[in-house]
């Protein structure tokens, strides 16, 4: 088999339904395999050029700050300091607290986002009255920018004048107002609630779009087998869209890790660093002008996410390999 047919594997439909490769086709492939390189280059070129010029060049040019004494408060001496900025970060006990916060922030945000988003997507497949309108309405949180969500929730969570405390006490759930953003535990809860509210849409849309690619006959076959709904979900639906699911989760992890907007607007990392994640801390450091240290922190973020992605992708590949 020529190499380029191996990509689409691991899905029941292909395995079950792909027609066998005919001799005629094999010849055909070989005949244009010389043009393969051209096709790849032509299709890839625009994306590669844009990303190289407007993303990679400035990022690489900017990363040198991480290895220099680059402080906006005094740029007269921007000497190379090697790994000095990194050492400063690793020597700061706050770094480890904030790293822990980042993990809590990612994990506690992504799990409810994924579950609610998945449930919405599954249930939105079923036709019901005003489904279009319903979808448009529940998709709207994604249409708001992170900073606006942050400001909005900062006021809704305000201890004394906030609408959330007002509603909770009207419902009889609390006796005294909760000073949400003033205490470490509740502050983290509040920012995670805001982020969950915001991020469910992303999962719902992505999963809904992916579910559309599951052909009905796969379900029909499952129904004929007498599979229950739950079993169909786990044995047919999820494996079928697993590529999309896996990538969606990976992208979300990267994004949430790198998403300071909501926290920055709601708590600024407070009280006392308790809601700082690495990227909000980075903003705080840029605001005091130390671009060298902030860039170093940025590269640490990249390193952490790269390692995570590598393990994640490996785990997925292994799991897939085991299944097929």
């Amino acid at each position, binding site marked *: 088999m020529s190499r380029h047919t191996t990509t689409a594997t691991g899905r029941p439909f292909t395995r079950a339904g792909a027609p066998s490769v005919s001799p005629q086709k094999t010849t055909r492939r070989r005949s244009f395999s010389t043009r393969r390189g051209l096709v790849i280059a*032509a299709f890839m070129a625009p994306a590669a050029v844009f990303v190289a010029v407007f993303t990679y060049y400035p990022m690489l040019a900017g990363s040198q700050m991480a290895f220099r004494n680059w402080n906006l408060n*005094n740029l007269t001496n921007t000497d190379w300091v090697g790994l000095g900025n990194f050492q400063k970060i690793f020597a700061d006990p706050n770094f480890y607290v904030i790293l822990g916060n980042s993990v809590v922030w990612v994990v506690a945000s992504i799990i409810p986002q994924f579950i609610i988003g998945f449930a919405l997507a599954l249930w939105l497949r079923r036709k019901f009255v005003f489904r279009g309108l319903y979808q448009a309405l529940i998709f709207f949180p994604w249409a708001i920018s992170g900073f606006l969500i942050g400001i909005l929730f900062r006021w809704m969570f305000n201890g004394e004048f906030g609408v959330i405390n007002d509603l909770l006490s009207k419902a009889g759930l609390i006796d*005294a*107002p909760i000073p949400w953003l003033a205490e*470490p535990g509740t502050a983290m809860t509040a920012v995670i609630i805001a982020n969950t509210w915001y991020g469910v849409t992303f999962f719902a849309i992505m999963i809904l779009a992916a579910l559309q690619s599951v052909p009905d006959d796969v379900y029909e076959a499952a129904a004929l087998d007498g599979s229950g709904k739950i079993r169909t979900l786990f044995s047919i639906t999820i494996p079928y869209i697993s590529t999309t699911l896996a990538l969606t989760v990976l992208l979300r992890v990267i994004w949430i890790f790198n998403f300071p907007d909501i926290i920055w607007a709601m708590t600024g990392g407070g009280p006392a660093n308790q809601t700082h994640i690495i990227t909000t801390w980075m903003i705080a450091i*840029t*605001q005091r002008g130390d671009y060298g240290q902030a860039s170093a922190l940025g590269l640490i973020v990249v390193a952490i996410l790269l390692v995570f992605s590598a393990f994640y992708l490996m785990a997925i590949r292994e799991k897939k390999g085991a299944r097929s």
Partner: protein
Amino acid sequence: MTKRKLLAGLGLGLVTALALSGCSAPAGDGKVTLQLVESLTSPARTELLTKLIGEFEAQNPDINVDLISPPTDQADQKIQQMLQSGSGVDVLEVRDLTVGPFSANGWLSDMTGEFDGWDGWDSLTPNAQSVATAGGKMYFVPYGFYGISLFYRTDMVKDAGFDGAPVSWDDIVEQATAIQDPAANQYGYAFRGGKNGYTNAVLAISAYVAGDIDVTNAYRLKNGDSIFSAPEALDAMDTYLTLFKQASPPSSVAWGYPEMVEGFTNGSTGFLLQDPEVIAAVSESKAITAEQWNTAPMLVGPSGKAIQPLATAGWGTAEASEHKAESARLIQFLNSGDASIEFTQKNSLVPILTGAADDPFYKTGAWASYLYMNENPDVYITAEQPRGVAWFTEWADKADTELQQVLIGQMTSKELLASWDSYWAEKWAAE
């Protein structure tokens, strides 16, 4: 092939568009265009600046001014990019916080030459003149000053059985505690625990050591130690924390500027220590009427004195500007005569022009307390804040975090003061 054509077309389009946009027509009529960048942007102020610029352009037909108004939160970063690239900015808003770093990087032009012989110089107040020529260089000319006074609810104070505004920090603890009634959603003091919350803690500490303070550096005592090392500082912190525990909204650990102001203007808190810009916001409030509030002078410490931390901002010229003479003309226009008076009054700033404070505007209502403080400089001592040092933003970040640690019980006030003292002692020793 379709795709080739498409790609070629796309590429061609890009190149053409690049070329077209590359030749943005330079003004051929000999006019000079100045780029003016503000940083403490607000819609109302931008409107006012636009109007003043219009007047300037009418008087100077050879000069065009483009006003660039980035949102406040992102403004400094944008201005830094512009200054670093050496393009796109002629006149910019320079603040006491930014003048140090900006001038150290060689981004600001020393305007001494351009301002030599300016007829408006003599009408500046001594304060404004000394800020403008600090360190022997004229990196910016202030457009006004920000001072602090105490906003208070006359009705709440009266209902709680007091016959006047608190004068000292001890008074406010007593009054605010009496006013505090969480069940009725009524709180004593609009405490600032969030961003820049340290400023009010420093205010209390300064008041307690006011007599010993070095007026050229408000963080230093006359004996050279930091104000945080004084034994009185601990008393100040204890009083300040009592104010928080007994008489402030519990969630004010996280309150920044907007929450404090909103807490006062929506009628739920009795006291607010703030700059005069708040006057406009409170006047617009429909929750409290003009009879329900007033301002009082700053709170004094046990010695009966207080430190007025005058903050300032003004206009400067970028070193990279090719139109320094025209830039100076614009700054001179903004900082003199009716333009300056209108700017300071509409922005609720302490004026830079001598005699401007004699205007009836500054004698009435809420402004009266500023006038009173001005007239009693021995009690309300003006001391220069060390806001120009390179590490000041780092300090602000550290101080905010540690104050919050004290508020949520992760640190004692003694540890806080020790940490703040050693921070400044180290910085000064390294200077």
